[in-house]
């Protein structure tokens, strides 16, 4: 199981990073969402994996911590999920405004897509 979770986290991270490195806002947003899946899973997995041991107490006396999975990373991740929605919404809003105001959803400072921009757009380091 550990291997599956670790490889899934690795794959989601890689996919997220690749998408973040694209040149348009929408893929970057998707990439950030993928990264937040990966990070949330990562944080969650630091509590080690357990199956059928939810942190909901079964009895009120003689609580054996070994009988439950680690609740702490779960609490952290729960709020992280909600917060990452809030942050995604902010980025979405910012990218919509940028797109509406500049007529392009590119993430660099190209004024408008055109023949000129096409030639140089993959070498952004050549432009200011």
């Amino acid at each position: 199981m550990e291997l599956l979770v670790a490889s899934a986290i690795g794959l989601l991270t890689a996919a997220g990073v690749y998408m973040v490195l694209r040149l348009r806002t929408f893929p970057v947003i998707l990439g950030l969402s993928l990264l937040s899946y990966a990070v949330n899973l990562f944080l969650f997995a630091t509590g080690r994996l357990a199956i059928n041991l939810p942190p909901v107490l079964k009895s009120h006396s003689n609580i054996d911590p070994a009988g439950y999975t680690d609740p702490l990373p779960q609490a952290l991740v729960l709020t992280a999920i909600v917060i990452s929605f809030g942050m995604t919404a902010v980025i979405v809003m910012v990218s919509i405004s940028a797109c509406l105001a500049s007529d392009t959803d590119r993430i660099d400072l190209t004024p408008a897509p055109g023949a000129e921009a096409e030639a140089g757009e993959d070498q952004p380091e050549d432009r200011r």
Partner: protein
Amino acid sequence: MSLFLIVLLPFAGALLPGLLIRAGRNVCAATTGAVTATALLGLIVNAPAVMRGQSLTARLDWLPALGLNANFHLDGLGLLFAGLILGIGLLIILYARFYLSREDPMGRFYTFLLLFQGAMVGIVLSDNILLLLVFWELTSLSSFLLIGYWSHLPESRQGARMALTVTGTGGLAMIAGMLILGNLADSYDLSVILTRKETIQASSLYPLALVLILAGCFTKSAQFPFHFWLPHAMAAPTPVSAYLHSATMVKAGLFLMARLWPVLSGTPEWFYIVATTGLVTMVLGALIALFKDDLKALLAFSTVSHLGLITMLLGFGTKGAAVAAVFHIINHASFKAALFMTAGIIDHETHTRDAQRLGGLRRLMPVTFAIATITALSMAGLPFLNGFLSKEMMLEEAAHTAWLGNPWLVPALATAGALLSVAYSLRYLVHVFLGPERDDYPTRPHDPGFGMWAAPALLVVPVIVIGIYPAVAEALVNTTATAVIGQDPHVHLKIWHGLTPALFLSVVAVAGGALLLSVQRPLARLWDSTPRPEAKTMFDAAIAGLAGLGNRVTDGLHNGAITRYAAIFMVTVVAVGWHAYGGGALGAETRALSQISPVAWIGWAVLVIATLGLIRYHRNRLRALVLMGVIGLIVSISFNYLSAPDLALTQLSVEVVTIILLLLALNFLPEITPPETPPLRRMRDMTIAAAAGLGAGGLIYLLMTRDFVFGTISDFHLTRSYKGGGGDNVVNVILVDFRGYDTFGEITVLGIAAIVIYAVTEALLDSPVRRRLLHRQPGHALAGDAHPMMMVIGTRVLMPIALMVAAYIFLRGHNQPGGGFIAGLVASIALVMQYMASGFAWASERQRYPYHGIIAAGVLLATATGVGSWLADRPFLTSNFGYFRIPPLKEFELATAMGFDAGVFLVVVGAVMLALESISRMARRQDNEVSPYPMDIDPARETTPAKET
């Protein structure tokens, strides 16, 4: 008066002038004067005790573990400096009242002045070097404001910037030096540090600490090669120059050298760095002063020279020299402040301070002439004036000092400095006041009113009194010197010491100086024609170079696209992670791998296929979004599978709102991503991505196959959850109780995020973008039936059910998976469905409470729950719970944490709805009339509303 109060008074009083200027300039000046006078009075009350040899302290431990204490103490040295700062400050306030013109904002001037005064008093009374550093930086900042007071003048702004840059840089070096010093002494309290001389000087870090601290002192006290900022700071109004550059700011460096003299001095490093710097500064400053035509520049360089003199004396490291240094500090402060004020008077009355355009003022301005004569002759070091006494002591010390075994170098250069000092002092008199009266003064000069010459005239009193009866200063000098050298020197100040070498050198200096002045004009022509390094040009070039370097680095990293720095960031993170992995030890595997069920394999395979598909087909954005949904779903299922039902519920409901959000976004963004990266670059990105993925996956794999190295606090939460928080669902108890403060912060952030979105929308709809939005044509034909009956009916039926589910999830949250977060998300989904079915306009017309209000209510409710525990004398957010029974219901539990959870619920609903509502608000078009009906086609209705085209 308490030492705290003395330091705080100027800061507190700084608020007054800005307000009271409305009551008139006299009231403003009088109030400022009263503040300073009160502080001075407080100091004087303490003076007798200090003069008896006591040292007063006031302690306030703030963070003792870090050595951060607000400790003040008052000994002889502090008394002298605080007295100078407050006493001369009082005279400056009087002088400035008459100096500043009606156009100058006087309230601002006095506010800056008091801020500066407070910072200076703080420096000299601090007993903690960290506190001292804070005040040190405050003087840099407040002097920046004072020097740049005439901010409409470019020289003023440039001078202020230069002063801030130079003294600020030195201040940074000094912070490092002080931290080393504190570490060596094992305490940041000055009183402790001063007793650790042997420990500190034995350390190998002593030279480093010394150089760094001296860098701070030298920049502040304008020592060579940092002397260049002081003349440029003369662009300030004259009261500022007189205050900062005679008595206070530039003396801060000297103060610190004197303060730390007991621990730092006495080593060859100290002697060669400090004494040599002082000697060079003294001679060089005096030489430049001789050729300056601007009176304030002349005085500025003479200040540089005299500061060099004092630095040199401190650098000698002998007790006699330290006493001479202390004495010269007193004398210099009195005659130089008065001289600056006379220069200001001349400037004020004749509208020029160019020595070439002046001369013959002695009959026109007799009072000013008298003041200037006495103080300038004191600066020259002529007998029966106070400057003579300390200059004699300096020459006496210099005569006995050998430099690298050379016995005549120091005396010769010191005499040269004294000689030049005589020359420029006499020049100030001869070229300005003597000679024939001219008829081309810019205005007809005359003496100013009493108010303006009162302050310098008062300063003349000590110049003469100490000059004639030096014994009056003995007590002060002895007390101050005791604080510096650690024992009472019992000096007896007298005018006549017999035929000493110092007297001989003095005679040489006076005669030579007078001679030199007679040939000053031809020498000045020679001086002007010789090329010299111009400090300002070099400084500007250095700043431009640094700014250029900064720009190149920034432009290289930030080219406007996030891609570049995201890539750099990723590569750095992977490299740092790899380095850490290589450098640390990896423990043995302690956890066996758990079984993989077929279900897990299937889930994993779906996730991998969806992710790879997303990468492959992400250009079609809608398709990418569908695949995102699949991934999110698998993630929620895995949470559930891995014993995290709360996470699964949260992820599932967040997934729904996220997809709706992104769908809304696609309404405004292009539907496809055009291919625009060449294969090579794609390869590069893939390599970076693969490295990051391998790093993250490998790290978590290693982590999961090993047990915790340290004990976990999770067991505490598990065992205390029921007893302490009254809940079985440990995750929920952590959220609303154990870590309630974190959750409180998080819901606040969430609310802020939603309001940011709302604000951006508002700004956007106020901008020209609005027109474009209103006239936007959809990319393809819209559905003819925008609000279909089936959907409307379905969502209406679902709404109460969904809300009930939300209520159920909310109520059971404390003991079963659920809680405010999840309930809030479910409730929002129920509401969003109505927007989707009947349209934004129709739904929002039926909205009763604005979503901001709901967010605010949520945060307030959470706060109120937290504050409620104060009533029970418990810390913020301590929860309480009890069991109740209302027949015919079963026994049930009520916890105060439920109120908090309700706050969470409200914030989540408000934030999600506000975010989605804001974005969909932009989708409204001009032709979009609000339909009075929930659905477009309603068989129960006779007519259908006109359909949109």
